[in-house]
C-alpha cells in the first residue's frame, strides 16, 4: 500500500511539472500583461515611452518572449516555487500565497455547503428514480435535473437574483455583507447571520447546477445494480424490498459514488469563478478572474498551480477510496 501511494505521488509530481510548464508558457503568451495594462494610458498621453515600458518589463522578467527566454523564466519561477514562494501579485500587491490563503476560505465554505446539499438531495432522488423507473417521478425528476444542469451558471444566477432578490426581496442581491452596515472588528453573531444571508443565493446556484449530474449518475449506477444477478438472488431469498434496495443495491451503488465524490473534495477549495463574480463574493474564484483579466501573471500561475495540485490530489483520493470501499480491489504492487 505504502509503495503504491509513493508511486502514485511520484506520478503526480511528473504531471504537475508538465502542467506548470504548460501554464507558464500560455501565461507568457497572453497578448497583454499587467505592465501593458497599467502603462497603456501613460503611453497614450505621452508621459511614458515604449522604452520605459520595456525597461519595466525587463525588471520583472517579462521582456524576453522567445522560447529560450520563457524557459529561463520558467526555471526561475520553478526554483522559487519549490521553496514555497509563488512570487508577488502585481494586482493585489501581496505574496500570491497569502492572497490565496486569505480568499480560499470563503470559497471553500460556499462550495462545501453546496456539496453537502447536493449529496443530500440528489442521491435519494437518483435512487428513487431508479427504483421507480419509468414512473411519473422518474420522468419529472429527470427533466428537472436536465434543465438545471443545462442552464449556464450566470443565467441561473441572474434568474435567481431577479426573482428571489429583486422581485421578492427575500435575499440580498450581491456581496458578502451588507455594505451599509458597519460591524465591529472581529467575530460577532450578527455579522455571521448577515453573511449567511448573503450566501443563500450563491449556494443555491451551485447546488442547483450540480444536483442534475449527480442525480443522473446515481440513477444510472443504481439501475445497473438493480439489474444485476445478485439483486435477483437477494429477492429470491425472500428479503423485503427495502432490504434489497437499501442494503444490497445501495451498498454496491455506493462504490462509484464514494470514489467520485471523494475525488471532488479537494476541488472545493478551487472557487466558483463565475458564480462568485456574478454575486460579487470575494472568493478565490473572483480574485482569480480579476487577476486574469489584468494579466497578473504571478497570480495566474500560482492559482493555476493550486488548481492542478487540487485536481491531482482528487484523483489520488478517488483511487485510494476504491481500495477502501470495494472489497474486490486489492493493491498487489
Amino acid at each position, binding site marked *: 500500500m505504502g509503495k503504491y501511494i509513493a508511486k502514485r505521488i511520484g506520478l503526480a509530481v511528473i504531471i504537475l511539472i508538465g502542467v506548470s510548464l504548460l501554464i507558464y508558457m500560455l501565461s507568457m503568451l497572453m497578448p497583454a500583461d499587467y505592465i501593458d495594462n497599467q502603462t497603456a494610458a501613460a503611453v497614450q498621453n505621452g508621459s511614458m515611452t515604449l522604452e520605459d515600458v520595456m525597461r519595466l518589463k525587463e525588471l520583472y522578467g517579462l521582456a524576453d518572449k522567445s522560447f529560450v527566454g520563457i524557459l529561463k523564466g520558467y526555471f526561475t519561477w520553478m526554483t522559487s516555487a519549490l521553496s514555497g514562494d509563488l512570487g508577488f501579485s502585481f494586482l493585489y500587491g501581496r505574496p500570491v500565497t497569502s492572497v490565496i490563503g486569505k480568499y480560499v476560505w470563503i470559497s471553500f465554505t460556499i462550495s462545501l455547503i453546496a456539496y453537502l446539499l447536493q449529496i443530500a438531495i440528489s442521491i435519494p432522488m437518483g435512487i428513487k428514480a431508479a427504483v421507480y423507473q419509468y414512473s411519473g417521478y422518474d420522468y419529472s425528476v429527470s427533466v428537472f435535473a436536465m434543465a438545471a444542469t443545462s442552464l449556464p451558471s450566470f443565467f441561473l444566477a441572474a434568474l435567481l437574483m431577479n426573482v428571489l432578490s429583486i422581485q421578492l426581496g427575500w435575499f440580498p442581491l450581491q456581496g458578502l455583507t451588507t455594505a451599509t452596515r458597519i460591524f465591529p472588528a472581529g467575530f460577532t453573531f450578527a455579522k455571521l447571520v448577515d453573511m449567511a444571508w448573503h450566501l443563500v443565493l450563491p449556494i443555491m446556484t451551485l447546488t442547483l447546477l450540480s444536483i442534475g449530474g449527480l442525480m443522473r449518475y446515481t440513477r444510472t449506477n443504481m439501475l445497473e445494480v438493480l439489474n444485476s444477478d445478485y439483486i435477483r*438472488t437477494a429477492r*429470491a*431469498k*425472500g428479503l423485503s424490498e427495502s432490504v434489497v434496495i437499501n442494503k444490497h443495491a445501495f451498498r454496491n451503488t455506493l462504490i462509484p459514488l464514494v470514489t467520485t465524490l471523494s475525488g471532488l473534495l479537494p476541488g472545493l477549495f478551487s472557487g466558483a469563478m463565475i458564480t462568485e463574480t456574478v454575486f460579487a463574493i470575494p472568493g478565490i474564484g473572483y480574485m482569480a478572474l480579476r487577476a486574469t483579466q489584468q494579466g497578473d501573471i504571478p497570480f495566474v500561475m500560482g492559482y493555476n498551480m493550486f488548481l492542478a495540485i487540487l485536481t491531482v490530489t482528487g484523483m489520488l483520493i478517488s483511487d485510494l477510496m476504491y481500495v477502501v470501499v470495494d472489497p474486490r480491489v486489492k493493491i498487489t504492487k
Partner: protein
Amino acid sequence: MAKDKSKKVDKNKSTDVDYMSIKEERRISRENRKVMKQFEAVKNRKNVDESEYLAVMKDPNNVVEFDNLHTYFFTDVGVTKAVNGVSFNIPAGKIVGVVGESGCGKSVTSLSLMQLVQGPVGQIVEGSIRYTSSEGKTYDIAKMPREDMRQIRGREIAMIFQEPMTSLNPVFRIGEQLDEALALYKPEYSNEELKNRSIEMLEMVGIADPDKIYRNYPHELSGGMRQRVMIAMALICDPRLIIADEPTTALDVTIQAQILDLLRSVKDKINGSIMLITHDLGVIAEMADYVVVMYAGKVIETGTIREIFKSPKHPYTIGLMRSKPSLSTMNERLYSIPGQVPSPVNLPDYCYFCNRCDFSFDHCEAEYPEMTEFSPTHKAACFLYEERFADRHLDLPALSKAISSGAEAEAARSIPSGFVDLQAILAAESAASAVASESEEA
C-alpha cells in the same frame, strides 16, 4: 384485456420487423406503459384477502402445476411472448427436467414461479401457477401480491442460478449472505446459532474449509465453490422445491459432474422436488424423473424419462437427441437441427417448428397442434400423431434403431453427464431385461 391489446400490436405491425417507424414505436411504447402500469398496480396491492389467490390442485400429488402460463415482455419493438401457454406439473419428491434450446423460455418460466420476472417490462399476463405450501394451502402464484410472495421465496421455493460468478453480492462476505437468508426463516436464532448453522450448511455442500469460506468474499472463490455456496444458500431454509436454472452450464466439465452429484445427494436429503433447467440432455438423463421439452415459449413434449428417451415423439425432441454427441456416433459429423427458433415477437399462428421440421406436411401451416396423449404421462404437440391424419400414412420420425430399441430410465441414469451414450443404454437395457426374466423364472 392485456392479451387483446398485445395481439392488436402484433397485427398492426408490418410483416417486416426490421423497419419500424418512429410513430409506430411511440405507439407501442405508450400502449406498453399503460399495460405495464395496470399489472404493476395489481402486484403492488397490500392487504389482499387470501381467498383471492387461493386455488385447488388438479392432482394433490403435485407441488406445482403450471397451467396455460403466459409471460410476456412489453419491449419497445413489440410484445415478446417469452412464455406462451406453458402447462406442466412438478410432482412432490421428483426431479423434473426442463430442456430446450437457449431462448425458448425456460428461465422465464422458472422466474415466473418465483415472481422474479424483470418488471415492469415482464409480466405474467394469463394462466396460473398453483403451488401447495408446506402448510398444505394451495396458492395461485400468478395472482399473488408481491408482499405475500415474499413468504414463499427462499423458505418454500429456493433458486440456484446459472451464473455463480455474478449471483452472489460482491460486497458482502459469504457468511453474511448465508446468515441473512437463514435469519428470515429463523428469526429467533442468535448470531452465534446463525453462524453455526451456516457453517454446517457449507460443510454439507462439500466445502472443505467452511470456517474460512464463511469469512471470504465471493470474488475469493472459484466458480464451482460459489455454486456450492449458492446451493447451501438454497438449502438453508429447507425448501420444498428447488429451481436449478442451468446450474452447471457456466462450469468446467469436471466441476459440472461434482455439482450434479451434489444436487442428487441434496435431493435425497431435502425430500423435496427439483425443477432442473438445462439445455443438456445428458444432464437430464442423469438426473430427472420427468422431462418437459420446450420450444419457442411452449411445451412441445412431456413424459417420464423412460418415455422421452425410449420413444420420443416430437421431431424437435428427436432432433435434440440426435444432436447430442455419443460414443456410437463418435466418428460421424455431429447433427444439428437446421434453421433458427422463430422470433418470440412475431410468432406464426401455426406449428412454431414448421420452418425447421423435416416431417412437416400441408396441415402444419394451418393451425397450432394440440397435445396428443400417448400415455397418462406422455404427450406431444405434433400433427403427425393425430387420429385424423392416421389414414394418410405419414412418415414418422424415429431415433436410429440402436437408440429406439433401448433407453430405459435406469439405464439413462448411468450415462455420464455431457453426452448420451447409446451403447451404454443398450447394454443396460439388455441387462435389465435379463434380470427381469430371471426373476420371473424364480
